[in-house]
């Protein structure tokens, strides 16, 4: 290693200690890579990224609470990310589609070197990483919808189970997620989020609103053409004419309990 090059800061994220150890051992042959932190879960990883600003991240896909994709969505970094996974056909397909480096566990030395070399050239060229939400959407098994939304506010990470969402409101490039009386801002368009939600539970009642059907208590006429939905906590949301059609279709399908 020439002295002119800066050391490459890396963090290793995996919920299994043995798996982290395996990556550390593979990296030990590379003195130019400096391990800044090891993280046992996604929340630690988000903190470590903010704190250490690594250039390289080894990121496990299956982790409790926050998956590797969730972490990527939250860190908003230009670091090179190498995913590690044991076996997940959907995740692997997602990596291939979006040309992301990934390593299959157990990780072989040769394959590891190739991935590391790719990552280095990506860091040198400063080529942009693929969008995390595209990756996450591609990695979701067919017929499965989002189970949780992750929102970062400063350094705080909030995980909201989808069932606990009351409604979603579009605000320019953001979506406000309303849950239990609080609103959380997430940088995503309402249309792309709508595609990840179970259409049996969430309805787009208006250009700017998606509502959790469970929360709707009644719908009242409002003005000449439009209607208004009243949620269980008293929130009033506008319903467009098309939105009302969609809402009624869904309510007709559901047996009244």
């Amino acid at each position, binding site marked *: 290693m020439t002295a002119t090059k800066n050391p490459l800061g890396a963090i290793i994220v995996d919920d*299994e200690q*043995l798996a982290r150890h*395996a990556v550390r051992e593979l990296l030990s042959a590379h003195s130019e890579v400096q391990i800044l932190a090891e993280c046992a879960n996604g929340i630690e990883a988000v903190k470590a990224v903010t704190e250490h600003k690594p250039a390289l991240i080894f990121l496990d896909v299956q982790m*409790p609470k926050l998956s590797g994709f969730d972490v990527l969505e939250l860190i908003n970094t230009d670091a090179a990310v190498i995913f590690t996974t044991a*076996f*997940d056909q959907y995740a692997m397909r997602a990596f291939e589609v979006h040309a992301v480096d990934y390593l299959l566990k*157990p*990780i072989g030395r040769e394959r590891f070197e190739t991935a590391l070399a790719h990552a280095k050239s990506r860091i040198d060229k400063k080529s942009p990483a693929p969008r995390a939400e595209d990756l996450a959407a591609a990695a979701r098994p067919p017929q499965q919808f989002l*189970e949780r939304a992750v929102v970062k506010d400063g350094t705080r990470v909030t995980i909201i*189970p989808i069932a606990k969402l009351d409604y979603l409101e579009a605000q320019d490039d953001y979506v406000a997620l309303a849950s239990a009386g609080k609103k959380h801002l997430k940088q995503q368009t309402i249309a792309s989020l709508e595609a990840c939600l179970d259409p049996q539970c969430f309805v787009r009642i208006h250009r700017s609103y998606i509502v959790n059907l469970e929360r709707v208590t009644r719908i009242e006429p409002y003005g000449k053409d439009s209607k208004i939905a009243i949620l269980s906590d008293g929130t009033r949301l506008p319903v467009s004419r098309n939105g009302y059609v969609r809402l009624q279709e869904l309510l007709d399908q559901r047996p009244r309990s």
Partner: protein
Amino acid sequence: MAVWRSRTDALMHPLLARSRLGVYAVAWIPLSFFLGYLLHAGAHLPWLAAAALAFPLCLVYQFMCLSAWYSCKSAPLEKTNAGRLALTHATAAALVSLLWLQLGKLLVAGLSRFAAFSDLSVRYTTAIPLLFAAGFLLYLLAVAYYYVILSLEASREAQTRVMESTVLARDAELKALKAQVNPHFLFNSLNSISALTSIDPAKAREMCILLAEFLRTTLGLGEKSSIPLGEELQLLERFLAIEKVRFGTRLEMREDIQEDTKFALIPPLLLQPLVENAVTHGIANLLDGGVVSLTTRSTGSRLTVIIENTCDVDATRARHGGLGIANVRRRLEARYGNETDMRVTADAGIFRVQLSFPLEIASVAVAETIHEEAAR
């Protein structure tokens, strides 16, 4: 066995094969009376002469009509066009009927020796068109009858085939369910071994052996239709020991096994997918890990098994209808039918599967082997 029998039957004459000739002969008696009536009314034969002709002729003709079966077999309704069908059977009917008339002539020649039937040969000649028509139609009647039999048989065979294929498909499905080892589990274990080789070679070897034993047992058990619960428990202990290496302190296990339930017979690998679920969907989703607990009880004539695990309070909703749980339910229902009682609950961070089904006890010999193995 069933397939073999139905195929031979199909080749043989239905009346000859199933000794139904008696019924067949009885069915011809009214036809004999009818023919006698025809000869009397249509060809003006005296009653006695008509009867003397009709009964022997019908007796002979019923055997001649048995031949219609073979022409029906050779010209299946669905595969032969209508023209050929009509031609085949009309020709056969005409030929058989003509042959019958010749036999009738011989009969008449015999009968003419008696004084009572002296003018029979003259009268017979006038009756020939009528007899030919009767023979022709009777033959066609036989043809129709055989076609009905053939289609009934075909539909019955199709039904058996459908039933057999359903049974085979279910067998294959169950076999597949039993033999499945989650690839995720396998790769993760290999990854742990790979990491251990440099940190703790002895532990790596131990884990290799655990994994090999687990796989061997899994493969072996798939062949059996039932195993003592004790054997399944050994398998679960190995499985959890392997997962323990992976998860470390995050995985804790508790067992509360009523001693005599170890001899209860259960379908092999029934509990393994549930314990695996408890680890991969329960423990693996918890930052600080949790507990998997296993309880067995025998109450009177039933065996109850409870598998519980700590789980993420927020993530339980998606787990209710898991594929693994649905498979276990299907297997139990296929085996115990209405006697199956399976309850899945998720409450306050505890995911719980409770199974209850009829208790069957392994024979003494099997029980002893388990004791020995346990002692070792």
